[in-house]
């Protein structure tokens, strides 16, 4: 099963455009990332620029309306994520607990929805194409 470990750094909601983490924290984090990679559990990871460089698109009035960041109402914002593939929720928690995070940081763990998690009707609606009948004649393994 796959999990997102969502990094929420308190204060990042107010960070100036171009704010970067300090080199020491990055070095410790790289070490951590390497441990995830060496254990064969890391699928993807990214850090995000602060919301002051982003925008929000709202749909309150039924159509898209854009607001540039920062967003005064936001109390918690994302700073980055890891996607990991592990055996259990407990394992994801264990990996998150090993992160060299600072006291203002929170990691939220969320399981990634797999297609097979959806009930049949949702699967049907989510399918890109109607189920095709096999043309056959292909020995290539599926």
């Amino acid at each position, binding site marked *: 099963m796959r999990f997102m470990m969502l990094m929420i750094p308190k204060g990042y909601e107010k960070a100036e455009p171009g704010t970067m983490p300090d080199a020491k924290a990055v070095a410790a984090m790289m070490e951590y990332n390497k441990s995830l*990679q*060496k*254990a*064969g*559990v890391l*699928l*993807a990871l990214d850090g995000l620029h602060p919301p002051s460089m982003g925008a929000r698109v709202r749909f309150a009035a039924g159509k898209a309306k854009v607001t540039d960041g920062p967003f005064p109402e936001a109390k918690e914002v994302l700073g980055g994520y890891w*996607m990991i*593939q*592990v*055996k*259990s*929720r*407990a*394992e994801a*928690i*264990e*990996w998150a607990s090993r992160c060299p995070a600072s006291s203002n940081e929170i990691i939220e763990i969320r399981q990634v929805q*797999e*297609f*097979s998690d959806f009930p*049949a009707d949702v*699967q049907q609606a989510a*399918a*890109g*194409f109607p*189920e*095709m*009948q*096999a*043309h*056959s*004649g*292909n*020995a*290539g*393994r*599926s």
Partner: protein
Amino acid sequence: MTASDTHRAIDAVWRIESARLIAGLARIVRDVGVAEELAQDALVAALEQWPKSGVPDNPGAWLMGTAKHRAIDLLRRSKRLERKHEELGRELEAQQEMAVAELDAAIDDDVGDDLLRLMFTACHPILSTEARVALTLRLLGGLTTDEIARAFLVREQTVAQRIVRAKRTLAEEHVPFEIPRGAELAARLSSVLQVVYLIFNEGYSATAGDDWMRPGLCEDALRLGRILAELVPKEPEVHGLVALMEIQASRSGARIGPSGEPILLLDQDRTRWDHVLVRRGLAALERADELGGALGPYALQAAIAACHGRAPAPEETDWARIAGLYDALAQLTPSPIVELNRAVAFSMAFGPAAGLELVDALTSEPSLENYHLLPCVRGDLLAKLGRSDEARVEFERAAALTRNARERSLMLARALECTGGSPHLSSK
């Protein structure tokens, strides 16, 4: 934290730490069986103590510390016994104390090499393939005997016996706990890769209704492959194998239909492919190429899978490239199955006649005598060439050979089409 939370946490720590723990201990005691017992003892100690004391800050170090003490006790005990038997003098005793201290320091070194030694030992060619698979999942994958048994649809006792015998063989034959060097390395590495790919394929062949442990084997194999790629980053075939597994795994959500029926590659809904895994697979393949390994057997298979992975729609598949890759694969690892796939690629790239020529050469191949896909492919090519009567015979033959009911009805439907039962051919 409740007791069951603690047990779940211990289970998670075990998943993460057990292989490193066993590997480090095997270096001290030079016996993977004893190392595993010591690691298990440490796990039992954790199960006793952590529910009361809480999970320690560094659970891996706690387990290693606990197991290490037991290992050193064991060493001292056996030395003492030895000493009694052989009446060794004081000088030797001092030497042994020093040896224990050195081992003590050694285990704190980087565990990467130990993990690699453990992989090579578990996949040692002295063991049967089944034993290698079971031992690898047990020692490196952190699976229990029961989990392995469920995954392979065999009795737990069978797996337990396999593991016990394998450990005994390793001890009796004095298989050294080491990384093979020189010419031996390539052969031994290929055994490790074979075991990992076997585990993957066992998971990949799982069908609906199987125990969930079975498809889980794909994830276990991928994890082992990714770990191995970190341990021997300069070996191109390791990256080739990882690429192959990542790309194949990317299709797992698309290859089985709502009622459990297999969906062939060209009929899959490509939006359901896991594109994170496709990207990872392509990146691993690139690494294999950069290391000069583009023509290794796993890299070639991965390159074929990558041609499909890169194509947004089946029509956009680069069949000429796939045909060329199958040419290379057929030279490197010739087999009737590779040849049949090569024929399909040729027919897609250069037309049905080109494919049929290759398929016809296979009809006298004894190992394909009862293989339903041969008449299935041949029938398809004949139908495309307008040779309906011959095609019908092939489809009927394929229907008789397949054990899958769904496939059988599909083949019979195609046979019927050949007799003019289909609206497409009714003008005939």
